[in-house]
Structure formats: structure tokens, C-alpha cells
């Protein structure tokens, strides 16, 4: 990709936010700072489903160990970025 790392990350955040829409019941604006549990009310069970959708979409694995540390959308994007990097 020719875009800068920042653009790349913004694009990833946009895509992840899109995948999150289904969980965004109150229709808040999803940013890197959005907390999955506190702001979107995603519980541990839904979080596992969400992770699987993201894995499928990007064709990556997000190991349970890494998923445990994800609190905010930004954390999730960082993990996706890392796993895409191989």
C-alpha cells in the first residue's frame, strides 16, 4: 500500500467501526477511543463473536491471549494491524 501508516490506520479504524455498527445500538460515533464494554455495552460473549467476524473479514487470527487486552476500538485496530503485518 502506498498510503502513510496514519492513513492506513484510519482506513482500518473505519473498517472496524463499520463491522461494529451491528453492536452500536445507541448509534454513538465510533472512534479509536470508544470503549467496547463501557460505551458499546459489548459483553464478553459478544466480544468473542465480534472478534471472529473481524478475523474472517481480515483473514487473520486474533489469539484469545491478545483479545483479552482489548478495551477500546483503538486497541482492536492495533491488534488487527499487528496481525495483518504477519
Amino acid at each position, binding site marked *: 500500500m502506498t498510503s502513510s501508516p496514519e492513513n492506513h490506520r484510519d482506513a482500518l479504524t473505519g473498517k472496524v467501526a463499520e463491522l461494529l455498527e451491528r453492536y452500536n445500538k445507541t448509534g454513538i460515533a465510533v472512534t479509536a477511543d470508544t470503549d467496547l464494554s463501557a460505551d458499546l455495552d459489548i*459483553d*464478553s*460473549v*459478544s466480544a*468473542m*463473536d465480534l*472478534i*471472529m467476524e473481524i478475523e474472517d473479514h481480515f*483473514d*487473520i*487470527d486474533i*489469539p*484469545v*491471549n491478545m483479545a483479552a487486552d482489548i478495551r477500546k476500538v483503538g486497541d482492536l485496530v492495533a491488534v488487527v494491524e499487528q496481525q495483518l503485518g504477519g
Partner: protein
Amino acid sequence: MDIFEKYRGLIARHDRMLEAAGDPFNVCMERLISPTEAIIDGKRTILFGTNNYLGLTFDPHCIEQSAAAVREQGTGTTGSRIANGTYKSHRDLETEIAGYLGKRTALVFSTGYQANLGTLVGLAGPDDIILIDADSHASIYDGCKLTGATVIRFRHNNPADLDKRLARIENKEQVKLVVVEGIYSMFGDMAPIAEFVDVKKRHGAFLMVDEAHSFGVSGDHGRGVAEAEGVEADVDFVVGTFSKSLGAIGGYAASDHPDFDTLRFVSRPYMFTASPSPATAASVRAALECMRDRPELRTRLWENARRIHQGLEALGFETCSPASPIIALRMSDEVAALTAWRRLLDHGIYVNLAVPPGTPNGVCLLRCSVSAAHSNAQIDEILRRFGEVASEILTVADAG
């Protein structure tokens, strides 16, 4: 900050539950009458959620053997297997389990939960990759955590998804261990183990199967789903429990791997806990004999399961899988499930209430389990009483 602060949300949810239905997770069996009946809240209640698949908890032979062992060997071993806690009875039990399963080596653990912890942590370490079914039991998740391995979940009962994930990590040299169960504890659905065997062979991975709910239940000899599917030799590690079909407590792990005994000096959940009591070891051996010599128990179990499954569906309940000794009824939400659970208990039927996060996909269930010891009269009663509350339960479910 208070140490329990992190649980405020859960405590509030629990309090709401208490108010609505009493405590579904703290039911007291005041007196046991038989494998299928007990006094609860002073009332005679049919037990329809106990995992007592073969109904052996009151089997005279098991009780006699167990009582004799207490008299001869005492009430407890007061030590771990690596210290003073290995009795001849543990060795004999391990030999018998290995023989029954046709595996080279078997190890006995103090619970089924520890059998999973101990096997996983004995097999895998921080440099390895474990791939587990998304709906795995808590003991598998917890065991994985203990290993420090990279843990990847694949979609429930989906060999194609496992295949895809193994392909993704194809070029990694790490050891890969795949973990599935035989029959899943919540829905009672069966793993396609033969297909998983194909996948794991193709990718050079190891396969561990937890037959907790299928030991004594599936296969011509009750050795589990791998036996039923004819692929036992390709299962590298098999784990199981004594707490369900065998009516006792404890667990086992067995394998043909020549180094499997290594677990005895590397697996902490095996090493640092007291060994099963002599009474337990004795009743398990007796129960294994029953399992071997009385195949009609298994026939009866499945007849009962099919009859009840059919009966409950006819009443309008939504089941979660084809007939098996675990029959899960889907409820619309937690309130509906709680209400239904309470109504059934008031009508003298005990089932398990299962709600998230203990259930797959966040569903709320009435989890029923069938026993070979349920008599025809009891099954009639179970169906009659479910029928009595059905209109009420199902209305609640629809309203939700």
C-alpha cells in the same frame, strides 16, 4: 476501592435473579431418594438435570466397593500423587481405564476440571499453539490460560473453519494442538470428530478430545464419540470425567504417546493436589464394570432421551440439537428462562438453568439431562408436568 467493586454489575444481576426466582445456582438437595429423585425445598422432586447418565450413583455394587475401600484404606489419602497419595487402588484404576480405552497410558486426576487443566498444561507450553472449539468448557479455556500458549478459537463444530485457521499458520514451526469435546455440555450436540481427525492429520497437528459427557454414553462400548465415529486410534489424547456416567468424582487422561507419563512430573494440576479418595477409586472401578457388563444401560439411556426429546418438542419447546442425553430448551431471554426454571421446580422438576456467559452465543436455556435410571413412569410425569407449565412458559417466551 473495595475489592469486590469489579463485581458490582454481576452482584446486581444476581440479586435480581434471587428476587425473581430464588437462587438457581444454589439449590440444596436436602435428601437424596434415588439417582432420579430428591427432596428440594421440602418437596419430592424428579431430578432431570444431573448428568447422572447411567444412573449409577446408588448402584449397590458401586456402593459396596466404595464402602469396603473406606474401611480398608481410610477416608482420604492426605497427599498428592507425587508424595504419599499414590495407592495401589490408583494404579489399578489407571490400568483399568487404559485397558478400557485401549490406550497405552492413563492418568487419574482429582476432578474432570483438573484433568483438562493438567492435560493441557502438561502438553502445551508458551511456544505452542492451541486451537480450541469456540464453545469449549470453562476447564479448557482455563487450562489454555495456564499453558501460556497462543490460543486460537475456531467456530463451533466447524472442521472447515479449523482447516482455514491451521492453513493460516501452516508456515509456523510451532507444535499445534487441537482441542474438541465429544458431546457439548450445553446443547448436547456431537462433534464431527472423524472430520476433525482428517483436518488435524492434513496439518500435522495433535488432537485432544474431552469425552466428559460422551464417556459411557456414545460408542458401542461407551468409550465416547471417537469410538462411535471409529477414529479412536487417531485421537492423540483423550480426557474424561468420573463425575457423570460413572457417578463419582475425578477425571482421567489417556494416550498412546510413549512419553505421556511425563505429565506425572510436569503437570502441576496432577502433582500438587491430593489424589482421589480410596472410596472414589473403588466406586469408579465398580462403575466401569457396570458400564462394560451392562450395555443395556446405554440402550435404555438413549431410549429415554429420544422419548423425552420427542415429547418436549411435541409440547412446543424448541430444542437445540437432535436427541441426546442432554436436552437444551431455548428460552427467549433471561427472565423467561428464570421464570420457567422456577415454575418447573415448583412443579417438582429440577433442571439446570443456563445463562450467559456460561452458554454459547449468549442464549438462555433450560438444560435437561436424561438418565438410564429414569423410569417410564417418571418420564410420563416429566412430560406431564412440562405440559402443565408449557402454556405459561411458552407465553413468557413469546412475549419476550
